[in-house]
């Protein structure tokens, strides 16, 4: 390969790192700020394990959302799907079905719903926004319909199932209490790993990135556009169903709206992560940073006992500041 005459530049390497990791630096700044404000309680193992557990559900949705967003699509129905998957499993539990049956059915619903989204987007050719917004309404309606709008809780949820969210892998003890790496955190990490391998290490992921970059070129280059889009939506659907199950386990109850808030946050996390890639494409590790920013802000601001309304203002402002910073650094370098 011919190489271009390149001028050595001392600050280049640093500039490049800053450029890529501006958002990460923003994240660390946020962490440092909370640490300095709450030196005793924020930077503790327990609090961080807590945070990981709190964001684990959002994480699973956001990680799998990354899969469709890599193709330039998005899926607005994930929150409703999480609610639906959770409700469906809980209803089966209520009928005294085995736990595994409930889980399997929820996952199947996730696949089926995802495939339906995929069919609408990829075979029929409806824009993802309209297709998945329509499906959001449908999923949510079905969740209400089958649950008759009621919350399922208490003995209906088997202990075996709700204990899962309480448990974890012992990491050691602090004081006299055992410190656990929460099971939900482990699930989220496994999903993260799976999505990372899928997107960054497999031919499937490569092709998704090609689709995201240029659909027509990808098609002419032999990428089976329709099939891959279909599969990608199914993956996102399963992710949402997994998140729905995690919610039921964590809350020991199921409610037809309990996943609804996940959608906007998940998309926001992916977009936050996108600010970290040179070409502005989503990457699942970037998404992780996005999820962490959202989770840490929530935890830290609550620890500061800031008024809920001000907290909301600050959340928005801090996110924008962090991203602005990362843009300005990139501009400057």
């Amino acid at each position: 390969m011919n190489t271009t005459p390149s001028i050595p530049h001392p600050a280049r390497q640093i500039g490049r790192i800053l450029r890529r990791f501006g958002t990460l630096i923003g994240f660390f700044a946020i962490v440092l700020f909370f640490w300095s404000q709450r030196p005793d309680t924020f930077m503790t193992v327990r609090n961080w394990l807590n945070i990981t557990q709190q964001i684990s559900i959002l994480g699973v949705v956001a990680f799998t959302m990354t899969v469709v967003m890599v193709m330039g699509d998005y899926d607005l129905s994930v929150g409703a799907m999480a609610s639906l998957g959770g409700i469906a499993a809980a209803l089966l539990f209520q009928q005294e079905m085995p736990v595994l049956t409930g889980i399997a059915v929820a996952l199947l619903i996730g696949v089926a719903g995802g495939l339906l989204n995929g069919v609408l987007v990829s075979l029929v050719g409806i824009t993802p926004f309209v297709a998945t917004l329509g499906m959001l309404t449908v999923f949510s309606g079905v969740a209400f319909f089958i649950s008759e709008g009621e919350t399922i809780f208490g003995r209906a949820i088997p202990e075996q199932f709700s204990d899962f969210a309480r448990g974890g892998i012992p990491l050691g003890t602090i004081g006299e209490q055992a410190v656990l790496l929460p099971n939900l955190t482990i699930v989220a990490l496994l999903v993260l790993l799976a999505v990372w391998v899928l997107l960054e290490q497999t031919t499937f992921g490569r092709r998704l990135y090609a689709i995201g970059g240029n659909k027509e070129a990808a098609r002419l280059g032999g990428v089976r556009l329709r099939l891959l889009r279909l599969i990608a939506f199914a993956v996102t659907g399963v992710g949402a169903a997994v998140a729905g199950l995690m919610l039921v386990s964590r809350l020991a109850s199921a409610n037809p709206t309990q996943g609804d808030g996940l959608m906007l946050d998940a998309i926001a996390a992916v977009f936050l992560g996108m600010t970290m890639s040179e070409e502005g494409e989503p990457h699942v590790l970037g998404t992780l940073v996005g999820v962490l920013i959202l989770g840490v802000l929530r935890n830290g601001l609550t620890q500061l006992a800031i008024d809920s309304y001000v907290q909301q203002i600050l959340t928005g402002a801090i996110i924008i500041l962090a991203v602005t910073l990362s843009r300005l650094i990139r501009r400057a370098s």
Partner: protein
Amino acid sequence: AQDDITVAVVTPYLAQPGTQFMVEAFQAAGEANGWTVNVIDTAGDVAAAVSRLEDVAAQGVDAIVINVDPAQVSVGLEAAAAAGIPVFGMDAGADANLVTNVTSNGYAMAAETATYVTDRLNGVGRIVMFTFDPYPPVQKRGIIADAIFANSPDIEIIDRVTPDVTDGGIADSRARMEAILAANPEAGSISAVWAAWDQPALGALQAIEAAGREGEGIVIVGIDANPQALDAIAAGNGFEASVAQDFTGIGGTVADAVARHLAGEIIGQGVIYVPTVLVTAANVAEFISE
């Protein structure tokens, strides 16, 4: 003439358990009277409730029952008035445009749980409050609790949280409580959680259990006595009290009022209160159905 009577029930809040009970009781009573009951939920959207009121007014139903703040849907009420359709409040709020409003006394409920907490703490302690002011019936409760706690100089409000309710109210409340617990790590640094309705109280309970701090005797109270809260009170892990509204009673009373009005009777009372009961471990068994 009762056989082809249609009654529309308009509410943005059907997802809430309390509303469900009221609506179900109303439906049961209505169907027993031979009415067609049309329940319309606008999924939290109040402006849409106005539109739906206009729709059913245009359609010419025989009566309308609302479960939404009448001040916010006054346009819809006028549409009904213009069409000559009587409107009844079901836990809605007093309004001149309503034939009557059947409800529990929200101020009284908050007073009961807030005084319960004050008394349990003997007037000394640090309290976390969960409130939600954008929804007027819940906002009232917060005001009363504020006043009662303010009256005890040794009670300190360490946080007044408005949780995100898009997830049904439990999940976010739990995350927020976890952060508060982390910020107040010493045993005894939190004495009580006062929640303006049950979901945040349940979230707080879960957070306390997950943090392994259920032994500290943190007193948790909610309002509404929903089934999940009743279970929690019965379990005796810290969720000590809630207030049971007689939702079934409200629904039935509204149906009764509608029937009386349609029969030509004049209903004099602008508001009909249905009594509430403080639920604690002592009487919870009476409320847990089967």
